[in-house]
């Protein structure tokens, strides 16, 4: 198999003496969709946040596109242009319109011309049915619309990989589908994705592989279908049962 886009080796993270992640190892290949599953508090969010430097780690090694990631501020600034991330909380900037939210990073961070970025932002918005919201402010949008804009905002940076941290967890149930559909479409367009989610049907539909976290360790790394049809560990089986799956 070709070289992994992202590879994680012996990663360890602790808050003071409190060990959160131990000996994390996995690879993500280009175009692959990896679902990161586990109970609350198993370290999923922490793990996904270490991948773009929002959480520092103490030991181990990250490689992105073959290069070792030096864990320092300047490296993370560069890397974050290639790794997009969307969070659980709505984090559009309330002081900017939808369009300005999307254009901010491409113009100020990637230094592209506004005249070039804006039409692209408009067409991205149109592709998710939000064209007429370009000039509105985030407070005028529903939760689902905000999350779709947040995804568009990350995509406008042309990332090589996307991280999704429970992006539907604070949405009203009727809003969830629209956001998940958008992520399914992204997966079909061969976007490399790591997805933390509690939506098991979605994970099964979209993921190529499942990483199952137990107490800060990966206890299963299996093809998605196999994970759901024949859970590899008792803990995973219990977890799926608890999700009514």
């Amino acid at each position: 198999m070709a070289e992994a886009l992202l590879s994680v080796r012996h990663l360890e993270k602790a808050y003071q003496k409190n060990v959160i992640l131990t000996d994390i190892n996995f690879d993500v290949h280009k175009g692959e969709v990896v679902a990161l599953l586990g109970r609350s508090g198993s370290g999923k969010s922490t793990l996904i946040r270490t991948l773009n430097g929002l959480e520092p780690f103490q030991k181990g090694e990250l490689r992105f596109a073959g290069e070792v990631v030096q864990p320092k501020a300047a490296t993370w600034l560069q890397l974050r242009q290639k790794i997009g991330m969307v969070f659980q909380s709505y984090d559009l900037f309330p002081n900017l319109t939808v369009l300005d939210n999307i254009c901010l990073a491409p113009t100020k961070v990637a230094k592209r011309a506004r005249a070039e970025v804006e039409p692209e932002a408009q067409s991205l918005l149109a592709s998710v049915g939000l064209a007429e919201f370009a000039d509105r402010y985030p407070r005028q949008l529903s939760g689902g619309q905000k999350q779709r804009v947040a995804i568009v905002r990350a995509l406008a940076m042309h990332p090589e990989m996307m991280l999704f941290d429970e992006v539907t967890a604070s949405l009203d149930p009727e809003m969830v589908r629209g956001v998940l559909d958008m992520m399914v479409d992204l997966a079909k367009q061969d976007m490399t994705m790591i997805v933390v989610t509690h939506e098991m049907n979605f994970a099964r539909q979209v993921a190529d592989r499942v990483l199952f976290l137990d107490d800060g360790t990966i206890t299963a790394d299996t093809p998605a279908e196999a994970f759901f049809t024949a859970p590899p560990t008792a803990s995973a089986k219990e977890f799926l049962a608890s999700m009514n799956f």
Partner: protein
Amino acid sequence: MAHSGIDILFQGQNFHRFLQGFGVTLRVAVITLLIGGVLGIVLGALRTLHNRPLQVILRLYLEIFRIVPTVVLLFVVYYIVPQLFHLDMSGELVAIVTFALWTGAEMSDIVRGALIAVPQHQVESAQALGLNRLQQLRYVLLPQALPVALPGTINLATRIIKTTSLLLMISVMDIVNVGQTLVEANSHQHPAFAFWVYGIMFIMYYILCAPLSWWAKRIEKQRLERSNG
């Protein structure tokens, strides 16, 4: 009331001098607020960084300017700085420098408070987009923090205006000093004249401060209503 002294107010240059005093007060206050405000925004932003020595220095600066009475600071700059550095500074310049340093200290605290009130996930989503610290401040944090800081800033502005009455101490002809001079020159013949002079001062300060105070209350109320809605 022919000899109450009100007519003296309008004799010769008297009223004109009063207006000039009003102008000096206003000018010192506005320049102080502009310089001190910018200084305070910069220092307030620096105070949100996690750099221990820097935090100690900035905290010390804030505490010194808060604890030492402004009049003492004013004298320090007026009598000591020009000798030490062989500078020829006008009283007005001395006052602006002193008041701006004091305003910067107070303002840094207001700005810091408003910046840390911006939710952490706003910072994180800005980081995740690749914005550096300066870009986070400029495009995300300050635009959200400054409206929060506005009522406190306006209240600070009224304090600056009132503090300019200390200009009297270093012989700058502000409202108070003009009034004092007029009283001293005329109170022998017309003891009631002082009443008019201080009455005028009261009205002038009121004109400067009351609208600000009202504005601060209004936007604070609007902000609370909006955040509850």
